[in-house]
């Protein structure tokens, strides 16, 4: 993947850079156009820092009209555009292109409306995920999806990536919590999908936009639903001698009809790294550590804590602590939430993967990872959204050792191949971006990919918006649209009919 091929820069665009920058200054006056190399440096990568590229120019529009004019201008002149929110993508979704305008939405940072009776918030796309909760929490409400970057990541970026978080087993992903968006198409047209009501009429374009990684349109407004904060939350911290027992405990909890607010698992290397870092009091003699959080009215939480404790014991747990205070609950989470930086302390670099598997395959996948770890000579620590099967293996490597990044990437690719092989997928919540782009054929055949690209053609027929992401190979829309069968060439189907 280090030898990542991006679309060949368009020489005509590169030659016209001065003219394009000047025109951008007319469309977005003031401070909204950045073209000096040192100032653009801040935008050269996103959360996938292994890849860096300065854009043609950075544009920070402030109004929908400006977004529309920038896109229309670029569409008319065949100039590529890469949209960007807060730049926290872990898959390189906002990686700039040398010949593309980087359209940064961070100045769209206002909450436009809060409607408590209907429990909705209308926000501009640059508002942070946590910013929505902050705006409504004084009334006891919150916005449910909570990706770990929630302090920084933008709600527009959440729509682009269909972000999840630790609570999405019970409360759903971004797609289940967004009611409507306003977006601008590459041709400058402004369309609204959904709104403050449920289920937009017609095709579910909102569903397709959510998770489309900035390839279909630029979101300029987001309407989300907010939820009443649960009365209480308590957690159990459960240790198991084997990952099989931990996995079976998760299956039995769900089998008992319990959907916890959060259910996270860590393996031995992750437990040790986290404990060394934050001293959360994690047991160090277990192979799997499970955090189960139950939320709701106190009486319900107490009832379920008892039930989950019994299930844990029946699965051979060796430790089971139940939080007795809010402080203790937070201490259970402290290690898990610090797992990435904790791993960062024990290794110069780490590479975070994001496959999802059917939960029952966990022991097999962990065993496979151990073998791969030996094969590549690199360590791996695992944190796992146990409720929904989303794995985050952290591969430990040192970028200063020549060839080690390549090895880490090959190791990561093999893990994802394993996820697909057992019935899972390449990415659960981080997106395909550039990172997993070339692995798409592991999951999809050419017919599958062609149909996805045809969807792109309906939104952006010239492949100008965020090209080089998601699809391993771009095909021209005219070619994709062609049909090769004609009247009289296909036999009348030989199947039951009347």
């Amino acid at each position, binding site marked *: 993947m280090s030898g990542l091929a991006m679309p060949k820069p368009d020489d005509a665009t590169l030659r016209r850079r001065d003219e394009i920058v000047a025109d951008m200054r007319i469309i977005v006056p003031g401070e909204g156009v950045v073209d000096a190399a040192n100032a653009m440096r801040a935008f050269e990568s996103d959360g996938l820092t292994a890849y860096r590229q300065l854009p043609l120019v950075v544009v920070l529009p402030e109004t929908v009209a400006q977004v529309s004019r920038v896109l229309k201008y670029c569409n008319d002149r065949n100039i590529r555009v890469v949209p960007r929110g807060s730049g926290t993508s872990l898959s390189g979704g906002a990686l700039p292109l040398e010949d593309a305008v980087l359209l940064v939405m961070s100045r769209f940072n206002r909450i436009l409306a809060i409607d408590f009776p209907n429990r909705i918030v209308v926000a501009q796309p640059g508002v942070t995920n946590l910013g929505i909760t902050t705006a409504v929490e004084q009334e006891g409400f919150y916005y449910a999806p909570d990706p770990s970057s929630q302090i920084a990541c933008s709600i527009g970026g959440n729509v682009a990536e269909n972000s999840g978080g630790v609570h999405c087993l019970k409360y759903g992903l971004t797609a289940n919590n967004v009611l409507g968006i306003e977006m601008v198409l590459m041709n400058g047209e402004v369309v609204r999908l959904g709104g403050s009501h449920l289920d937009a009429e017609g*095709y579910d374009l909102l569903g397709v936009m959510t998770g489309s990684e900035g390839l279909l349109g630029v979101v300029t407004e987001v309407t989300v639903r907010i939820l009443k904060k*649960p009365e209480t939350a308590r957690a159990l911290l459960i240790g198991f001698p084997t990952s099989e027992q931990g996995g079976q405990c998760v299956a039995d909890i769900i089998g008992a009809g319990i959907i916890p607010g959060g259910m996270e698992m860590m393996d031995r290397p992750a437990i040790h790294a986290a404990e060394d870092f934050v001293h959360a009091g994690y047991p160090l003699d277990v192979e799997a550590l499970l955090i189960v959080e139950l939320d709701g009215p106190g009486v319900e939480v107490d009832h379920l804590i008892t039930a989950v404790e019994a299930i844990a014991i029946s699965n051979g747990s060796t430790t089971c602590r139940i939080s007795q205070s809010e402080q203790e609950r937070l201490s259970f989470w402290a290690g898990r939430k610090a797992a990435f930086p904790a791993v960062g302390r024990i290794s110069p670099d780490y590479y975070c993967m994001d496959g999802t598997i059917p939960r029952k395959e966990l022991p097999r996948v962990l065993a496979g990872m151990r073998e791969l770890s030996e094969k590549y000579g690199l360590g791996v620590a695992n944190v796992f959204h146990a409720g929904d099967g989303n794995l985050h293996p952290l591969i430990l490597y040192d970028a200063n050792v020549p060839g080690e990044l390549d090895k880490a990437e090959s190791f990561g690719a093999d893990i994802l191949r394993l996820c697909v092989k057992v019935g899972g997928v390449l990415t659960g919540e981080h997106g395909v971006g550039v990172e997993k782009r070339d692995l798409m054929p592991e999951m999809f055949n050419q017919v599958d990919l062609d*149909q996805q690209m045809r969807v792109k053609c309906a939104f952006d027929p010239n492949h100008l918006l965020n090209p080089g992401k998601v699809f391993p190979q771009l095909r021209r829309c005219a070619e994709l649209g062609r049909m090769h069968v004609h009247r009289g060439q296909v036999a009348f189907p030989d199947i039951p009919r009347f």
Partner: protein
Amino acid sequence: MTTFTPATSSEVLSTVQWAAAEESPLEILGHGSKRGIGRPLQTEHTLDLSKLTGVTLYEPAELVLSAKAGTPLAEIERLLAENGQQLAFEPMDCGPLLGGEPGKGTIGGVLAANLSGPRRLKAGAARDHILGINVVSGRGEAFKSGGRVVKNVTGYDLSKLMANSWGTLAVFTDVTFKVLPSAETEVTLAVRGLLDDAAAGAMALALGSSAEVSSAAHLPERIAAHVAGGALGSEAATLLRVEGFGPSVAYRIAALKTLLGKAGPLEEIAGEASRLIWRDVRDIKPFADGTEKPVWRVSMTPAQGHQMVLTLRMQAAVSAFYDWQGGLVWLRMEEGDPEAALLRGLLRKHGGGHATLVRAAPAHRAALPVFEPQPPALAALSQRLKQEFDPKNILNPGRMA
């Protein structure tokens, strides 16, 4: 006039390939239980999926079920119930309202119509539970999207795009849904005798509390008599459903009673009686009268629903009830005229939304847009999308027009 009844995915593929080559439109049919919704079709051929059946994967502990698209919904719901699970989005049974048999409908039809029920806000609709699909596009190409796991952002979510596509983009052969545990206990609190505006206030109060109300509906006077075999009597009933584990339900019902103590007389309805009420709200039983009187499903911001109905009543004779957690107002036009322009105009003035003419005589459905017309840029985008899936316009042509 041929009806094709494929029993395998490859037979579906060869049928669509033939139709695409011949440019010969197909009506795509499961049980036909929702055939009365949308513009009437006049295709030469029919593709009947009712023989493409069978649950192909069900793993209760993984919360996942896959089935061939023509599998009866009733069969799937029975299988889930045996394992204490359910489709949490409560797909409505369209039979009673549209004058068909109850208990019909296929799992593919559930997705094609994006069905939901009175738990809509909390549990979502079919779109929120579909995990993966295998389909055949109007190009005569079999493709897949999604998978069998809940968390998946690999590629565009074409599974969601199939929701509410009414068979106009692709023919489904296999669908995979997320399934969830059924609630252990269910209790409904009914506030009696409220007028529409007072009911709206009571429901807003209840839904804004932490009692985790899963369904809320207001059945005005007389309408209430048409659910659960008349068990509620005809006095207006504002219904709040609370589901979960026993101790939690008891606690939350008590909290609601304190909250709504001054709103009006309260009744508690538990277990099977509660389930019957919500099944009938889901299936629009109050309007399942065996007639063709127009029935509208209006999706809008809940708090404005009763105001719009009040204004509408000044110009047309209507019966109305409110499925608040579905975000819906259901309307029956008593004089037989759908009054589409009037209704859609009022809807725009009351916060926007969309109105679907779910039941009407074929002549009305042929003459009026059954689905809410879209603004030009959005309509053009939808049309381009249709073109990318079905360039020869052979799948249910015109149904969503």
